[in-house]
């Protein structure tokens, strides 16, 4: 799988689910409506900046806090296809994978300083690399998915995964 898009960078660590989709919106279950509030706690202009297929580049422990699946749903429906971070909080990570909403991709911490906001990049899940097309096609490695995660991703979510 090869994906291309623009990077939206928020390098702060510990961006939590209250920031990604604040508590008052938990009662909303319409996916399109949730998308209009994505990242409202950190950038009220976020949804205006994102185009379909774009990527987030964020600090470590992204998605910590609550188990609300609203978080990956809101990001996915606002156009985000993959998130690059040194680490993810566990429930956010499995919600993103099992629900088939978007791809949480682990990177080395130093990549956070190399790739800038608005860079155009290519993510190659076959050879586990990122190419920064804005910066002379510089190549970085990404951490491959574990066996079960890549199988669930390939199946398109947990409900399509039959190897139990």
């Amino acid at each position, binding site marked *: 799988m090869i994906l291309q898009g623009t990077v939206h960078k928020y390098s702060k660590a510990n961006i939590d689910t209250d920031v990604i989709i604040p508590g008052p919106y938990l009662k909303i279950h319409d996916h399109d409506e949730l998308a209009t509030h994505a990242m409202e706690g950190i950038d009220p202009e976020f949804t205006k900046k994102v185009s379909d297929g774009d990527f987030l580049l964020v600090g470590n422990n992204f998605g910590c806090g609550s188990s609300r*699946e609203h978080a990956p749903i809101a990001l996915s429906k606002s156009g985000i296809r993959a998130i690059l971070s040194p680490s993810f909080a566990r*429930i956010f990570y499995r919600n993103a994978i099992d629900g088939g909403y978007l791809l949480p991709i682990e990177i080395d911490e130093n990549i956070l300083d190399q790739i800038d906001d608005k860079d155009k990049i290519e993510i190659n899940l076959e050879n586990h690399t990122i190419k920064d097309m804005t910066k002379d096609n510089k190549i970085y490695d990404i951490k491959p998915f574990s066996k079960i995660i890549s199988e669930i991703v390939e199946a398109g979510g947990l409900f399509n995964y039959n190897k139990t």
Partner: protein
Amino acid sequence: MGMTITEKILSHASNCNKVTPGDVVFANVNKVMIHDVSGPGVMKVFKELEKKGKPMGKIWNPDNVWISEDHFVPASDRVSADNVIQLTKWAQKNGIQKHFKYGFGQYGICHTLSHEEGLVLPGEVYVGGDSHTNTTGAMGAFAAGLGHTDIAYVLTHGKIWFKVPETLLFKLSGKRPAHLMAKDIILNIISDIGTDGANYKTMQFAGNVVDELEMEERLTLTNMTTEAGAKNGIIEPDTVTTEYLKHRTQQKFNLIKSDADAEFGEVFEYDCDKMEPSVAKPFSPENVVVVRELQNTEIDKAYIGSCTGAKLSDLRSAAKILKGRKVRVRTEVLPAAQSIYMKAIKEGLVTIFMESGAVIGPPTCGACCGAHMGVLGKGEICVSTTNRNFPGRMGHVESQTYLASPMVVAASAITGKITDPRDIQ
């Protein structure tokens, strides 16, 4: 090499003789919880699947599923009211009997009901559609929070995948001073390991201090493991556990414990003699300092509520300090369940709170997650018995929350400043 209690529970649940950290297992689940936020989310997953030609089918075991109404009760608006109606219809259609409804006798915060009603037993695998499901691990169960898709999967398949977590063991020893609560201890631990210090891992608590803690205080330790990123928090069951459950369930259960030669990822030793009442400053539960460093910090509100800090033991601790004194700032007390509210009335705690000037509210998660029932305004500062203090968590994004024990919150309510309970005259 032996197994930890968490590894043993997951190995039994997945019919494996032995599991080691890193193994991926499909574990059979004993109990499932959904509430008025995750429930409609799960129903939405089923609706989307149906659109794709995959009808939901039957629930694997309706008797092992229970529902609480806690986040948006009393209904904050029409959307919340509609969610509860939708949830009720779905529960009836799917034959779920254990539905703790607001305004129909016992109800309350899901994590409180799980122990107060004896819904989860030692040795069981329990998953809930809420991150603080970890709380119930204090009963000696494997308890973990999951999202909507995973809960939908468990409801229809009776099992779910887990990567077997490595266990971090926290040994709490020494003589715990009377003013030091479980909340102070867990805040100090989170301060040391950080909010991702236990990410994907188990936090297990042991040592003489844990042995001597009453069940509700133990539940504060496991509740806050979520704030260190833990998959689950757990305490081996003992006589405190069996005594606690004696009047709450007739069902038999197994007291699973770690093997003597179990392997832990890391062991942390804490001497509680030297630990002091502490608070987590905005905007992270790891941002911990001793209370006396902040004693001139003025506050606008003192909040005693939530699954973390409104159990009966929490209310008793707060009442001891508030008895015969008046609050100087807005103070709210919301017992975590109807049964706890009733016990607080019978013990005279509610009278103490009201005579101090505090307002008593119905059990709800509302203010803890900044949703309704007393949210903070711009610039307001709150000292709270809850579990999170992220930006905007309890209201306006420019409000501030300090996390503390019920004793610290009660002492602060009296002075109007963040106060160590030892400094109350």
